[in-house]
């Protein structure tokens, strides 16, 4: 009887002891996590709006938790003064012009204060310092922007849907064009021709500008050559032609893109025009013409390359390119 009583006392003792140990362990884990027993400094910041920040919320620096909000008080007429405890360890990274900002852990997470370290040339903060405040990017504003984007997207996809629907049904000129494989081939060729022409224009223009740079170097062979005014005027004329050509090509492609935009608009004159087969046929012709003209443009450029004056320059350029390889 005595021994069983003793045994009971021991078991009760162990039971209670373990319970208290678990409780104390809980307290210490919690304290460790909340940095209750870590040396800390106190920083202040005054916000216009803390967006639901609460005592105990975290303070982050570069995404690392360095402290917690200690106290929230009203300040002045409608501002809010936040006192936060920040680990002493983090003090050396926070400089005098550091900023504090209200943010949140996730899109719908807890509110936090994010500190940015400030200018590293300035001394570090001391306990009791007041941090500058950076206005937060509020979720509401973000959502508003997002909403505007959404509306635009809906409009664009709506337009696209109408266009593609019409194209599939073979409605209008473009539809007719696209269903006719020959026509499509033509269009493709035209586009390719235009493309190569404009590339050529580009190249020629670059070459010309390089050439004209060389012209300015005194005493060169070319320099001497250019003192002859007759040659110079001829050259000037060539350059002018090239410029005209390039402008024409640019306006042509611009026109094409406008035409594409307007194709969908039924009220538009072109739209109406393009709705019958006749005008589709005429468009076909136009495109053929366009192809021819772009071919001609190419030829012109080719001719320009063979111009006696510039031949030497082009050859030299080709050699240089060969060397580079």
């Amino acid at each position, binding site marked *: 009887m005595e021994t069983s*009583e003793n045994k*009971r*006392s021991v*078991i*009760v003792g162990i*039971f*209670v002891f*373990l*319970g*208290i140990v*678990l*409780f104390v362990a*809980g*307290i210490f*884990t*919690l*304290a460790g*996590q*909340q940095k209750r027993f870590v040396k800390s400094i106190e920083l202040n910041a005054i916000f216009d709006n803390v967006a639901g920040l609460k005592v*105990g919320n975290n303070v982050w620096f570069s995404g690392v938790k360095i402290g917690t909000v200690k106290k929230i008080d009203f300040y002045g007429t409608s501002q809010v003064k936040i006192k936060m405890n920040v680990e002493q360890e983090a003090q050396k990274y926070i400089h005098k012009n550091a900023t504090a900002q209200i943010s949140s852990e*996730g899109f*719908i997470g*807890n509110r936090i204060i994010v500190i940015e370290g400030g200018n590293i040339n300035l001394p570090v903060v001391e306990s009791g310092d007041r941090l500058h405040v950076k206005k937060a990017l509020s979720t509401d504003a973000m959502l508003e922007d997002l909403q505007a984007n959404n509306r635009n997207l809906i409009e664009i996809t709506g337009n696209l849907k109408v266009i593609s629907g019409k194209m599939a049904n073979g409605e209008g000129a473009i539809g007719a064009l696209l269903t006719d494989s020959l026509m499509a081939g033509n269009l493709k060729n035209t586009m390719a021709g235009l493309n190569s022409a404009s590339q050529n224009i580009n190249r020629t223009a670059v070459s010309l500008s390089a050439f004209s740079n060389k012209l300015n170097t005194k005493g060169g062979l070319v320099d001497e050559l250019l003192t002859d005014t007759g040659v110079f005027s001829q050259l000037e004329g060539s350059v002018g032609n090239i410029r005209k050509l390039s402008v024409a090509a640019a306006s042509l492609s611009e026109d094409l893109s406008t035409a594409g935009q307007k194709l969908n608009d039924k009220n538009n004159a072109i739209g109406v025009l393009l709705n019958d087969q006749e005008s589709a046929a005429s468009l076909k012709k136009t495109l053929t013409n366009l192809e021819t003209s772009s071919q001609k443009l190419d030829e012109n450029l080719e001719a320009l390359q063979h111009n006696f004056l510039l031949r030497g320059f082009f050859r030299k350029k080709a050699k240089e390119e060969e060397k580079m390889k």
Partner: protein
Amino acid sequence: MKKSGKYIISKKIDGVFTTLYDVYRFLLRFFKEVLFPPYEFKELVKQCYDIGYKSLPLITLTGFITGLVFTKQSRPSLAEFGAASWLPSLVSIAIIRALAPLVTALIAAGKVGSQIGAELGSMKVTEQIDAMEVSGTNPFKFLVVTRMIATTFMIPILAIYTGVVALAGSFINVTQNEQTSFSSFVESSLQNISFLDLFSSVIKATLFGFTIGAVGCYQGYNSSKGTEGVGKAANSAVVVSMFLIFIEEILVVQVVNAIR
């Protein structure tokens, strides 16, 4: 006693107030007896053993299941937000703030409360309490005070075990589904817990323990004669203490939220 105007209001309502007065006297007597010697340490240890240690398996098993199931059931609604990583935090708030003390108290009310009610009730009915009194032992001190102290101190300790085991249950479920490591579980589960939560929970459990002990002892000690009285005492010990536990839960939550 006068025949006319025998009851101040009516028999029933008068009865309620008489009971209230009896309860008040009962509690007053407890506080008087608990302060003055002799102290029944041996009996107290025995009661702590019976009420605390012997309830441990049942209560911790319940706690474990509670933690596990609660986690499992909460997952879908959080996963809908893609916030399943918040499970530990959510579950630990629920467990530490509410479930641990409440589940412990409810199970203890069922197990310990009924046991106390039935034991004291049968002791009363079979005159064991009178026998104790005439053999020079204060039965109130020996039976009631020891049991009430034992429940008051054992329920919070059981609640601590329940909380730990419930969190363990929750961890097992979380680690199976989200592959969360132990340290990260601890980290995130304690993230939103404050000292106030911890202490208010223990205080709540203490209050629940006192309630279970007081109700069980009152019902048993004042049970009517006959075997029916024993059953009634055991039954009302459970029902009344569970009811009071919920009332107290509401009140304590109000107070804690006022402090928070």
